[in-house]
């Protein structure tokens, strides 16, 4: 049953999300004004003064800043981020075209890293301080230490160039999905392994686990039925945040593996100063983050009845 308290908690969180998105829109909008002249920034350096002036007029950069900002926010609310300067198409269309590729990559990366991280984290926690635990800890430490781009290049060197097992770029076949999702998921795999291990070790030290043991319940049953359930709460919280920040890693992964997703769109747009597209991507990424966190907050309340609102 949803109580009034729960409901007001949910509304509060939703409002908070709206405030955050408002702030994000402010930052994204005013970032273009850091040099003082967005028109000169967006035009190629060889553009003449008259061309820049005409562009300034066309983009409405001569209007008061507040008017421009309101127009910007109004556009976003209607799903309009302006036209891409490069492609002369709505920025949002470009983003939506690329979205499935990134979503697929992110999903596969998150799936293998969560599953494997979960299994290895559990094994490490049950066999704490054993050789297996030590090995798993070393692997997860390395996984967090290696930058995505370096791991990606190593994977290409080993599996594409030397062994010739897997293709190093492109999209379409399952083989082409393997290396990018390995590279992208490595960090999350390590993080989730460490988190599951730490969380489970803490829960296994609780009194009710000792009671269960005293009752003669098998070790396996204790872990599956009693411990994991509580150990997973922090993991789920972090999971939501990871999913949202996956886009940062996807940026690099997509560049290296020539994966036609949002991350590559963002970097290409930044390098060609196609700012409407960049703005669209940043706002979209922030929206995903806010929505994920909102969902996690709600899931948290329902998963953990001990939380007092």
């Amino acid at each position: 049953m949803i109580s009034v308290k729960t409901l007001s908690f949910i509304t509060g969180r939703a409002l908070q999300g709206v405030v955050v998105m408002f702030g994000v829109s402010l930052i994204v909008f005013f970032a273009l004004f850091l040099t003082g002249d967005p028109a000169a920034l967006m035009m190629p350096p060889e553009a003449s003064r008259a061309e820049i002036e005409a562009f300034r007029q066309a983009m409405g950069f001569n209007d008061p800043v507040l008017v421009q900002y309101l127009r910007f926010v109004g556009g976003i609310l209607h799903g309009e981020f302006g036209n891409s300067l490069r492609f002369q198409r709505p920025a949002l269309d470009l983003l939506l075209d690329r979205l499935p590729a990134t979503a697929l990559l992110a999903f596969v990366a998150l799936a293998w890293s969560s599953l494997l991280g979960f299994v290895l984290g559990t094994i490490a926690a049950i066999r704490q301080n054993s050789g297996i635990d030590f090995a798993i800890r070393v692997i997860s430490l390395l996984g967090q230490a290696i930058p995505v781009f370096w791991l990606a290049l190593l994977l290409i060197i080993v599996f594409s160039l030397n062994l010739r097992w897997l293709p190093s770029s492109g999209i379409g076949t399952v083989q082409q999905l393997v290396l990018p999702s390995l590279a992208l998921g490595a960090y999350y795999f390590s993080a989730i392994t460490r988190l599951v291990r730490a969380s489970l070790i803490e829960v296994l030290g609780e009194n009710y686990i000792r009671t269960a043991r005293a009752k003669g319940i098998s070790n396996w049953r204790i872990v599956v039925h009693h411990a994991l359930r509580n150990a997973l709460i922090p993991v789920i919280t972090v999971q939501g945040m990871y999913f949202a920040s996956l886009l940062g890693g996807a940026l690099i992964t997509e560049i290296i593996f020539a994966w036609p997703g949002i991350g590559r769109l963002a970097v290409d747009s930044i390098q060609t100063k196609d700012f409407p597209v960049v703005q669209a991507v940043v706002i979209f990424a922030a929206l995903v983050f806010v929505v994920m966190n909102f969902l996690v907050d709600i899931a948290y309340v329902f998963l953990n009845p001990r939380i007092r609102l």
Partner: protein
Amino acid sequence: MTRFWTVRRNADAVLAVALLAAVAGLCILVPLLWPLDPTRGLLTATFRPPMSVVDGQLHPLGTDQLGRDLLARLGLGTAISLGIVLLAAVISVVLGTVLGMLAGYFGGWLDIVIMRAVDIQLAIPFILLILLIVAVVGPSMGNLVVVLGVTGWAIFARVARARTLEVRELEYVEASRAIGLSNTAIIFRHVLPNIVGPQTVLVTLDLPRLIILEASVGFLGLGVQPPTPTLGNLIGEGRSFILLANWLVLYPGLTIGALVVGCNLLGDWLVRRADRRNA
């Protein structure tokens, strides 16, 4: 039963210090003592593998596409990357600590505004925001320091605020207020010393993120511009030649790995030590 990995609880700290000392040695000793110019090479000696000798001159890590010595470039690049990251960390810590203390100490609308700003900061993917700003203001070393620093304050503000909320209620703070100490004096003399410890640990754990972030920006070609080397743009440049000369990518990557593992182990050890002391 004791096994070798449980024998010494400080073994990881020793390893961490060894790794960090090795990297520190690399970025201090090489630029000072190694005689080869990191930005000038011999075009007749390109892509020489590690340990090759050219004109009686040893290249321990080989040479790159322009015949430049990789050891010299790696030394300078590590020094520059570390410099950027450490300065940025200082900006983040100072900014975050001050804002967090203000939010926690005064509460009210100030608290609300600052903590919402933290939420906003955390909602934007760092790397996108940094790339956006660097694309607008231009990729100089100074800009990079400021951008990395200004975009990283949020977690420090959170911790500083939480700690301030605890300390604010302590009796000696109440006492100092009773004898008429000003808010500024209380914050800096009585609250701040309690925050320094946690923030130090947090910096150690946050440095890996900054190191990888800086390297990523460099890798994408939006960081410090060539021919100046950084860890990221060394890998970015070497990427085109991985078939021909994988050492160009290998050694800068290992350096980043050593730095990050070192910081993580040291941070974890500091956390455990603090826990033991509190227990």
